[in-house]
C-alpha cells in the first residue's frame, strides 16, 4: 500500500498526514501540487491546512492545481481519496464531493477534541466488521477550523442520507460549527472519495490524545482494522 499526500503552498498538516500513513503501516510520499503523475500511488490524502491562505474561499484556488486534475482522474477510476479539513473543502470545490463548507455559525475558529459517530454503511470502502458494536463507532478526534459548516440544499441532503453517503456526524451536542444535520464527513456516490472536517491524522498517537484516527485511514485504504 502506498499513499500520496498532496502538498500545496500554504498547506500545513501534510507532515502529520505523512506520519499517520506511516503509522498505519504503509508507505507514503508527498505529491507536490504541480505534479500530474500519481503513478504507483494506491490512495491519496488531501491534507488540512490553509492552501493558498484559504483566501477567497477555502480550497477554491488549490482545486485547480495539476495534482488535483490527476486526483480527479484517479477518483474517477475508483481510487480511494481522503480529504481532511482543507482537503475536504478542496474536494467540494472540485465537485468530487457534494456540498460546500461555510464559515462557522459563531464566526470563530474552534480547536477541540470531539466525538464523531461513524455512520454504518453498505459501501465497500468504509464498512468495518465491528461497526455493529456501538462503542467502536464513536471516534475521539480533534476538529480545528473556522470554515467547516457543512451545507447542501435539503433535497441533496436527503439524497446523501438515502444513499448512505453521510460518513461521519458530530456526536449529539458537539456540532462545533452549525453543520447541517450534524454532518462532519461525506463520501461520493461510488464510496471511494471521503471528506471530513475533523483531523484523523492528529489522532494516531496515544501520547497526543487518541488513536481513533487510524480507523479512518484504514477504512479509506479498504483494509479496516
Amino acid at each position, binding site marked *: 500500500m502506498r499513499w500520496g499526500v498532496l502538498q500545496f503552498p500554504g498547506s500545513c498538516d501534510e507532515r502529520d498526514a505523512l506520519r499517520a500513513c506511516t503509522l498505519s503501516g504503509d508507505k507514503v510520499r508527498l505529491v507536490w501540487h504541480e505534479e500530474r503523475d500519481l503513478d504507483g500511488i494506491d490512495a491519496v490524502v488531501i491534507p488540512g491546512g490553509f492552501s493558498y491562505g484559504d483566501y*477567497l*474561499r477555502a480550497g*477554491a*484556488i488549490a482545486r*485547480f492545481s495539476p495534482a488535483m486534475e490527476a486526483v480527479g482522474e484517479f477518483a474517477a477510476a475508483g481510487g480511494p481519496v481522503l480529504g481532511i479539513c482543507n482537503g475536504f473543502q478542496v474536494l467540494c*470545490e472540485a465537485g468530487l464531493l457534494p*456540498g*460546500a463548507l*461555510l*464559515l*462557522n*455559525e*459563531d*464566526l470563530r475558529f474552534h480547536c477541540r477534541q470531539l466525538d464523531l459517530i461513524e455512520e454504518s454503511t453498505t459501501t465497500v470502502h468504509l464498512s468495518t466488521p465491528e461497526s455493529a458494536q456501538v462503542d467502536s463507532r464513536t471516534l475521539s478526534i480533534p476538529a480545528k477550523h473556522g470554515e467547516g459548516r457543512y*451545507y*447542501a*440544499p435539503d433535497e441533496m441532503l436527503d439524497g446523501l442520507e438515502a444513499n448512505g453517503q453521510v460518513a461521519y456526524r458530530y456526536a449529539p451536542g458537539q456540532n462545533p460549527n*452549525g453543520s447541517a444535520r450534524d454532518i462532519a464527513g461525506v463520501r461520493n456516490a461510488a464510496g471511494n472519495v471521503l471528506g471530513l472536517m475533523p483531523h484523523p491524522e492528529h489522532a494516531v498517537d496515544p501520547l497526543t490524545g487518541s488513536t481513533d484516527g487510524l480507523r479512518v485511514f484504514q477504512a479509506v485504504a479498504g483494509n479496516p482494522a
Partner: protein
Amino acid sequence: MPRARVLIRPKEGILDPQGKAVERALPALGFEGIEHVRIGRMVELEAEDPARLAELCEKLLANPLIEDYEIEQLDGAA
C-alpha cells in the same frame, strides 16, 4: 485596462452569520431600523478581456452552490 467589479453574495436562504452578527451588534451601538443585513464579497480588478469575467466567476470567484454573483463594468472598454 477595463476595470470591473464583481459582487458575490450568499444565496437567498443560506444562513449568513456575518450579517446576523452585524444585526445583533446594532442596538448596542444605537442603530435602530436596520434590517436584512447580508454580507458578501467584492472583487475589483482590471481585465484585458472583460468577456471572460463570467467564466472567471463561475470557475473561481463564486461557488454557484452557495453564492450568486453580479459583474459591473466600471469604465469604458479599452
